[in-house]
């Protein structure tokens, strides 16, 4: 469903991501992990067509992001990291606007907006102005906006940041349900979240993919937790960069 081939993005001289390649199957939930500034958001922004890659390309839902960006955007629901919203707009009006832009027919628009509002628990704030929403509700509006038109691919950039524990559980539940019939690429810092929601993980560090494997393999192998795997992968990457392989071995690195 998502096929990334050698994506590279430079900001001036700095390579935000370098030669990133991976694959997400239809109906799979892929956890996209990495420390801050590892290139998660950059990769997601390229996949959603917000910024173009310097090199490489990706095929999302059967369309190339470079040659068919509009077709890709029709099939992708995107929740940006900072959840930008039009502050002065009422929630239901905002979602209706998104539905119109996404090409949901006039007759189905109301029903579609109702559906996503119910799914994301927004019915009680549907008449409120986005500016006055709490962080948790903003996050939900962002998610609702991504779900409109029922796109087959969902790209969610840190969907549970800033939520209270109860909201986190709710959102995770929603994502889990969505994972049954959608392809989801989910970035996060919160490792237990990945354990709960994702079938496969991808660890990126300083712009390069340092590890990827299924959660099942991970559980079956050593008794290592995801934390240990994450720290080992990141440490190994740093060590390789300095040409000090023994350090990586000492840190317990290796394939996932």
């Amino acid at each position: 469903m998502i096929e990334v081939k050698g994506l590279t993005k430079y900001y001036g001289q700095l390579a935000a991501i370098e030669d990133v390649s991976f694959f997400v199957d239809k109906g799979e939930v892929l956890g996209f992990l990495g420390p801050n500034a590892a290139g998660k958001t950059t990769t997601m922004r390229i996949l959603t067509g917000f910024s173009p890659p310097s090199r490489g390309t990706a095929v999302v839902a059967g369309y190339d992001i470079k040659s068919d960006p509009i077709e890709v955007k029709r099939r992708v629901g995107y929740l940006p990291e900072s959840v930008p919203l039009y502050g002065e707009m009422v929630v239901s009006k905002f979602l209706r606007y998104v539905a119109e832009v996404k090409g949901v027919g006039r007759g189905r628009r109301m029903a579609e907006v109702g559906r996503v509002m119910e799914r994301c628990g927004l019915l009680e704030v549907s008449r409120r102005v986005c500016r006055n929403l709490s962080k948790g509700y903003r996050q939900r509006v962002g998610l609702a906006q991504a779900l409109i038109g029922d796109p087959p691919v969902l790209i969610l950039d840190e969907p549970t940041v800033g939520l209270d524990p109860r909201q986190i559980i709710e959102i995770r539940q929603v994502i889990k349900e969505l994972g049954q019939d959608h392809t989801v690429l989910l970035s996060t810092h919160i490792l237990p979240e990945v354990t709960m929601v994702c079938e496969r993980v991808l660890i990126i560090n300083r712009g390069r993919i340092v590890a990827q494997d299924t959660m099942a393999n991970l559980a079956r192998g050593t008794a290592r937790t995801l934390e240990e795997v994450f720290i080992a992968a990141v440490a190994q990457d740093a060590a390789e960069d300095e040409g000090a392989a023994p350090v990586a071995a000492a840190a317990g690195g290796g394939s996932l």
Partner: protein
Amino acid sequence: MRNSWAVCKREFASYFTTPIGYVVVGIFAAISGLAFSASFLFYAKVSVNPAMYAYSSVPDFEETLLSPFLTFCGTLIVFIGPLVTMRLLAEERNRGTMELLLTQPLRDREIIFGKYLAALGMLVVMMAVVAVHLLIVSWYVQVEGAVLVFGLATVFMMSAAFFSLGLFVSSVTSNQVTAGTLTFGLWFILYIVGSFAEDLPEANPAPEAWGETFRNGVGFVYDIFRGFLHQLPIDFHAKEMAKGIVQPEDIAYYVLFAAFFLFLTFRSLESRKWRA
């Protein structure tokens, strides 16, 4: 086209869900209303006693009152226009909604036309205010149809052309104040350059000592340059047109002006694809 309409509706609605729409239309209504009252009173005094104001008879209503008033309205719209256009793209960039906008299945031209249409919507609202004055006038006076139609068309075209400049400036910055100031500044520069050009001598500035062919060449380029500067101010083409005297070049000026800046806006938005 349907997508442009969606963008336009959202943009236009946001003028009136924030104070900016009311402020702009309110200020426009107040100033144009005062100006209209003042020029109407003046015309009334003149028509009672033309001789006192150096007129031989009661002056032409359209020429003395209506056309100057409409030209004034156009200038006024251009004056407060930066307030309408500065937010169009700069605000999206500033609050991060650009990310939302550019990841929706919208083409760049749909975004640009949608935004431009929304700004033109504000223009129509302001012209509706002018129309109220004109309706009151036509109740009392038999107004010449051509003056009315072309006068309003002039105000519209002049402002619409200018709004395209504002849209372009808004697309190059993420700060609304910068966008507004720059738009206003550019308009003022165009205006001043035009009056400066009026003082340029008509004669060829090349010295006699230069060879004749070269002199003629310089003179030719100078003439084009002078003519160009002279025609630059956005209200230059409005004065005659507001009287109902329509020249194709005046219409062409406004259409090309708008097309040029819409094109630049398109390029500016597209530049994200090759800039880091």
